[in-house]
């Protein structure tokens, strides 16, 4: 009953508001259209096309026909190399992700505590990130090649480490080393910026209360940079699941299938064997894996990421 008197003006108000909203929507539509068209033509359409392709046996040359789920069934049941490739991909992702986050976080904390040279060190460690990996991988190839610098180095230290590139058990470590070298600088910069943003009053207050530097790190710094840490972890996980350049330039998936990853396998199936339909099926399996892991990470983050500063 109390609402009644105000009902009339408010109805007029909502009418005007609706009109404004309609105008806004129209304007927004026209402003968004160009980028939406770009998204549709260059992202959604190819995505749909690759999904459609994954149900065909298209081989680039010649006719293709619809084969239903056969590519997926072959991949998951018959293909002798798929499970090995999946294992390699997860092995690489887990090892690389953990090492990358640990190393970049440790270095970021170390650099943020320096009195001088912060910018210098950040620049130095960031350099590999904007060096084209495909080029630097060739230098790494010369380092790792049998009888090369790495072999000389290990033997000079009397370490019983065989040649990385020709050992099926250790070849993936070469990929991890090169990836770390080229990739940790990005996270280092990210975490460094987050650490700088922590208000010094929190740390000063904790210090006055008698918290050790170890406690200040675990109880204050880490929770406060947890959103950035989460972002870095998710992005690193996605890029490491897609790993390709290093494998392509350094080992071509070898020796045997020791370093063949999903990203490399898509390339080899599509552009060396010309089986585009099958390659699309592998790409969609990779898409589903990345999607699932990212959703999992988003779920789990509630337990350890703090957005309130």
């Amino acid at each position, binding site marked *: 009953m109390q609402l009644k008197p105000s009902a009339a003006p408010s109805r007029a108000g909502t009418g005007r508001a609706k009109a404004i909203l309609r105008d806004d929507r129209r304007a927004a539509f026209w402003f968004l259209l160009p980028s939406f068209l770009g998204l549709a033509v260059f992202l959604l359409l190819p995505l749909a096309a690759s999904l459609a392709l994954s149900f065909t046996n298209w081989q680039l040359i010649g006719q293709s026909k619809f084969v239903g789920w056969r590519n997926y069934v072959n991949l998951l049941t018959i293909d002798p190399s798929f499970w090995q490739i999946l294992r390699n991909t997860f092995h690489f992702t887990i090892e690389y992700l953990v090492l990358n986050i640990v190393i970049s976080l440790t270095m970021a904390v170390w650099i943020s505590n320096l009195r001088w040279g912060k910018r210098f060190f950040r620049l130095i460690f960031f350099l590999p990130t904007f060096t084209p990996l495909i080029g630097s991988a060739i230098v790494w*190839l010369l380092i790792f090649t049998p009888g090369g610098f790495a072999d000389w180095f290990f033997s000079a230290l009397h370490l019983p480490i065989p040649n990385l590139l020709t050992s099926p058990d250790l070849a993936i470590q070469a990929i991890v080393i090169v990836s770390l070298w080229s990739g940790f600088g990005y996270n280092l910069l990210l975490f460094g910026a987050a650490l700088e943003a922590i208000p010094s009053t929190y740390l000063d207050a904790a210090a006055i209360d008698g918290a050790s530097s170890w406690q200040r790190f675990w109880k204050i710094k880490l929770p406060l940079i947890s959103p950035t840490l989460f972002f870095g972890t998710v992005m690193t996980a996605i890029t490491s699941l897609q790993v390709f350049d290093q494998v392509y330039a350094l080992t071509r*998936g*070898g020796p045997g*299938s020791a370093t063949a990853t999903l990203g490399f396998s898509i390339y080899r199936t599509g552009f060396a*064997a010309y089986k585009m339909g099958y390659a699309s099926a592998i790409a969609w399996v990779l898409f589903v894996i990345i999607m699932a892991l990212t959703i999992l990470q988003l779920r789990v983050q509630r337990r350890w990421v703090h957005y309130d500063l």
Partner: protein
Amino acid sequence: MDILKNAARLAAAAGCALVLSTAARAEPVTLTWFMWSGSDAEVAAWKHVAGLVTEKYPDIKIEFQTASWPDYWTKLPALAASGQLPDIISLQSMRTPGFANLFEPLDAYAKKDSFDLAAFDTSIIQGLTDDGGLRALPYDFGPMVMFYNQDMFQKYKVEEPKVGWTNDDFLKAAKALTVDGNYGTAQSVPDVFFAYARSAGANYLKDGALDLTNEPLKAAFQSYVDVVAKDKVAPLFPASGTPSGAQANGRFVAGSVGMYVDGPWSLINVKDSVKFKVGIAPLPAGAAGSISLSAGSGFGISSSGKHKDEAWKAIQVLTGPEAEEYLASNGRAFAARNAQQKFWYESAAKGVANAQPTIEAALKTAEPYKTTAEWNTVSQLFEQYAPLAFAGSQSAGTTLDQIQQLSTQ
């Protein structure tokens, strides 16, 4: 008004003249030509040959497009799939089974113009032919031969390879040269291995299909990898972005490997980039003799092209006597035309020990390098899996089983 009338008359006259002149001449055509190349010198040579076409047919201009060797085989099917295939495309004999249907069969064209195919070496004509007919006119070919560092042989007083030498001679020389940080030889896969297997009496095809799992082939592969794994007289090449053949070539050119197998098409580049004297010899004889595999390349007409007749005219010039003489004299090609091969001996093979007797002996017993449609996959799988056998991590037989299974799945 008079001025206007005169102008109109002039325009009409000019129009007539234009119509007449175009009627007298054929419509000018620009043909696109896609060919692999590895250096600026090669590109310059191809552009020169393209110029010969315009010289003979002023209405045909050629636009040269290029890519590196491995990229060429990725781009070609991609261009075909997107309907952008150039008018003239290049084909290597080993890829004939896989790519033949992109190429217009040339038999009808050759018959119509009574074009003389007998002027070319027969093995390369065979190599560029599939069930549908001849797919390209060849410009070069050649058998694989053993390249050797003559200075290294002389320094360590090892007898040089010669026509009639055997596998035992080869191993003895390789062992004698493996001193002072150098290796006697370099083993690449798969092409050189298949020639080795043929010389050992084994075969890698059965009824035209890939057959890597037969026992004689496995035995041949084991003895091929043992040169690296057991005898250790050849470097171990990792699977990498650089194919094993290119790694072998790199080591040889650097002077740290005494011998390696390659085709005559590589001789000019090798000779120009080494600081020592180079010799060539036929492949060492195995149980079945010295059997090399010969391969070569040529130019064909895109089956989806709009200017097929002009392209046919153009490829006749690109592989004609004048072009072949130019390419052979520059060492770019061991000519597919028999009459022009002498120019290659006078240029690329100049100063190379035993060049002419070696090529002639090798050609006598060489077979065309036969392949299957999935050859690109077979090649890549060999590069990827053979290092396991070379390193001794697994047997040669198991490696061949894996490659067979993965390439025919």
